[in-house]
């Protein structure tokens, strides 16, 4: 037994520490691309254990990388500099659902969809719905500030976190926020920890705001002959002061991938599609649907489906869920970038992407959350082709540059992690980056907690 393993065993017991080669290999990846083997894996079951592991790591100067479900797409949960993977998956208890104050208190390992199912039985609603909700953890959602289709109306994870229990890099347990909707005492540390990608602290308990569950919803699927028609419809809908619960779009290439994978008839000459869902009071919904239809009329609409039943609505969403696997099946290697632009810039961004694809000769498929400007850009390629890697790199950089130029961002929801660290300076000024790094250095001078993420260099090498 190595020294590290012995010390960890003393903290959490033999059953919940491993240094076996197998486990190091299995915890060497997440849903992204990189691979780095940790020295040990620890399965924590309480905040006290997490704090004890942090203190030990500080003493031994060994990195600690928190991990939820390992579904992150940017390498956030990878042990880039070795050290300990600290799995929070076993801390998966829903501690409380407060139906009077509309909040839930959970441990970080609770799976997003499990909380949603529980609160919906009580007529309540936890809106953030990343496509990974059936397996991602709430701790991971908080750390990445996950979002999903419902963001357009309901916002992302950050809009639902009321309070946190956090283990600091020094191994102390602190509390931020609380159980109230308002709270202005001291810094808003809750917001600081949301989206910190596990670099500033480890969330060990999360207090989440809940909403009443909308009574009903109605789903529409609209087909357009041109991408411009669809993109302009998005701006027009928002411009008409309609906020749908979801507003998803798919471009021509996405629809081509979907043919044969959905029960829905896709018109031959279809250049783009929008899925629009409105929710709220039942008697109100038909009017909303009519308003949407009126706004999009005359904008190259060539067909529409309005789901009247839950099954019809499910068929539309089945088509949306089929997108990722369908797109992924198209090429041996694919890069999924989740840029975001101000909603009104979507038509411009799409045109730019089409031009970039044509110029580079590399297929790009676009779909995503048009309602909040978040576009999933799938670059389809085969890295085995000579010189392809460099061409893809150049293309990705151009995509990011275009998003930043339109005053958007290089990541709407997947985070920076390892994958986007080298592009950080494209979006943030040197002063902004320095400010962030000063914070990190102050809280974690030895760079123990999730080193190598967000920033390319360690805190001390300027």
């Amino acid at each position, binding site marked *: 037994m190595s020294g590290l393993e012995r010390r960890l065993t003393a903290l959490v017991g033999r059953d919940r520490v*491993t240094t*076996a*080669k*197998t*486990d190091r*290999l*299995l*915890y060497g*990846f*997440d*849903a992204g691309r990189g691979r780095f083997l940790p020295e040990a894996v620890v*399965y924590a079951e309480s905040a006290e254990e997490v704090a004890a592991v942090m203190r030990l790591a500080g003493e031994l100067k060994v990195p600690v990388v928190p991990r939820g*479900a*390992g*579904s992150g797409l940017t390498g956030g949960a990878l042990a880039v500099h070795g050290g300990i993977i600290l*799995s929070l*998956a*076993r801390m*998966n208890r829903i501690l409380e659902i407060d139906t009077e104050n509309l909040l839930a208190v959970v441990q970080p*390992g609770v*799976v997003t*969809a499990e909380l949603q199912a529980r609160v919906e039985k009580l007529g309540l609603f936890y809106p953030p719905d990343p496509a*990974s909700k*059936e*397996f*991602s953890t709430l701790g991971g959602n908080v750390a990445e500030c996950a979002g999903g289709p419902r963001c357009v109306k309901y916002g992302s994870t950050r809009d639902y976190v009321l309070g946190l229990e956090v283990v600091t890099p020094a191994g102390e347990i602190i509390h931020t926020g609380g159980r109230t909707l308002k709270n202005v005492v001291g810094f808003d540390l809750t917001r600081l920890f949301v989206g910190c990608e596990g670099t500033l602290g480890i969330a060990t308990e999360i207090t989440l705001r809940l909403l009443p569950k909308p009574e009903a919803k109605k789903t529409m699927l609209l087909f357009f002959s041109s991408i411009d028609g669809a993109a302009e419809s998005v701006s027009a809908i928002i411009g008409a002061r309609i906020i749908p619960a979801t507003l998803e779009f798919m471009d021509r290439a996405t629809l081509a991938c979907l043919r044969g994978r959905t029960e829905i008839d896709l018109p031959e000459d279809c250049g783009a599609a929008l899925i629009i869902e409105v929710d709220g009071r039942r008697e109100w919904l038909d009017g909303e649907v009519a308003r949407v239809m009126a706004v999009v009329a005359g904008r190259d609409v060539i067909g529409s489906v309005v789901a009247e039943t839950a099954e019809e609505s499910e068929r539309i969403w089945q088509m949306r869920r089929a997108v*990722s*696997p369908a797109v*992924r*099946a198209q090429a041996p290697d694919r890069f999924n970038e989740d840029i975001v632009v101000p909603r009104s810039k979507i038509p411009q961004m799409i045109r730019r992407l089409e031009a970039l694809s044509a110029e580079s000769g590399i297929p790009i498929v676009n779909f995503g959350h048009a309602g909040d400007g978040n576009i999933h850009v799938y670059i389809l390629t085969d890295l085995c082709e000579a010189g392809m890697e460099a061409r893809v790199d150049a293309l990705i950089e151009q995509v990011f540059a275009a998003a930043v130029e339109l005053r958007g961002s290089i990541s709407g929801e997947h985070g920076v992690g390892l994958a986007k660290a080298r592009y950080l300076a494209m979006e943030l000024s040197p002063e902004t980056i320095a400010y962030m790094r000063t914070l990190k250095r102050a809280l974690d001078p030895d760079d123990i907690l999730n080193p190598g993420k967000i920033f390319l260099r360690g805190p001390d090498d300027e």
Partner: protein
Amino acid sequence: MSEAVVRKTPGRHKVLEDFADAIQRCVRCGACQAYCPAWSAGRREGNVARGKVAVAAAMLAGELGRGAELEPAARQDISLCLMCGSCTHGCPNDVPTAEIVGAIRREVAAETGLSAVGVGVAALLGSKTLMRGVVAAGAALAPVMMEKVPESSGLRLRFPLDRLPVVGERILPAPAGKNLFARLPERIEGQPGRPKVAFFAGCAITWLYPQIGEKMVEVLVRLGCTVYLPKGQGCCGMPALSSGDGPLVSRLASANVRAFMPLDVDYIITACASCGGGIGEYYLTMGGDPAILAKKVVDFTVFLEEEGVCERLAALPRAVKRQKVCWHDPCHLKNRGILAPPRHLLAALPGVDFVEMEGASRCCGLGGTFSVHHSEESGLIGEKKVEGVQACGAELVATACPGCVMQLETSLCRAELPVRAVHLLELFGEAEMAALADD
């Protein structure tokens, strides 16, 4: 078809290398966590399909030893799999983890002996589970029961004599006085023009639940089918497959090919979902004669629905006293997409008020030999299942796999719920049977 026509192509077990492409297809998205019962029991990467596929990838890449050299931790991960196929069901890339696990188990077992796959691993853990199993070796009910069961039967693997779970923790039905074959003839002539079918009974129905087999045969006879019950049939091979015993699976497959091929029937009917998974699904992957046999295999729920049984049952007057019944999807039906037929049958039964339970397709936790070697995890998985049963308020849980019935009964009993688990066919009474016959 005569004996002479039976080709002698025994099929072949796939090896890990055959899965190289499938292993490559795993993009490590982690979606299988939402479906894998073994994950929910331990929540460690090695529990879930993604981890097992990563073990396989590392083996192929030479990063972990092969066969006997495979690291104990990896063996543990490979042994912690119910081979239920739920992960593949939810995988965007159709990665066949259960098959991959099967190939690794065969590889390990071939070099180190069978015990290495399950038992050996438990020993390495210094697990309490193992100790309990060993202490329970003297479990009273087992030896009596097992005396009657042939060496090659899957029941011996599921409930091996020296590793029986503690008495009282598992509900084993009392061994039947007379097994199925002693109760029924090998051939019952049907009406002209009606299908010729053979019934593949499987070990559990043959030895433990012959009354289910009798119901099955009666249903088929009432439908006018000519029914064969060839005595030469053996175990489907699923438990052997689960323990990595490739040679035994091959022997059993040959015996079944010999028993069924010459009959030249239209369909081979199963009333045990696991058996269907064995002779219907696994044999397909073997190629050769087993694959030819496999193509004729039909689950009874599918056959009955196609024969119009739902309509006939629905035409019966609803019973005054009805029972609330929910449905448990056996993994080996779910994975073949057989979800609707059993529900249609249940809903049509005049004495049944069908209710859908939450998590109907969640694995019960039996998983071949899994519950023997990992009884703690198996128990945890069972507990989750019971939550759904309790919430829907059913009086009975119906299913179509005797293994699931056993496991469900055990879990329900542990939870002290007054709910029983039954095989769907047990809900067929005289009125239902009468409705099946023409006019």
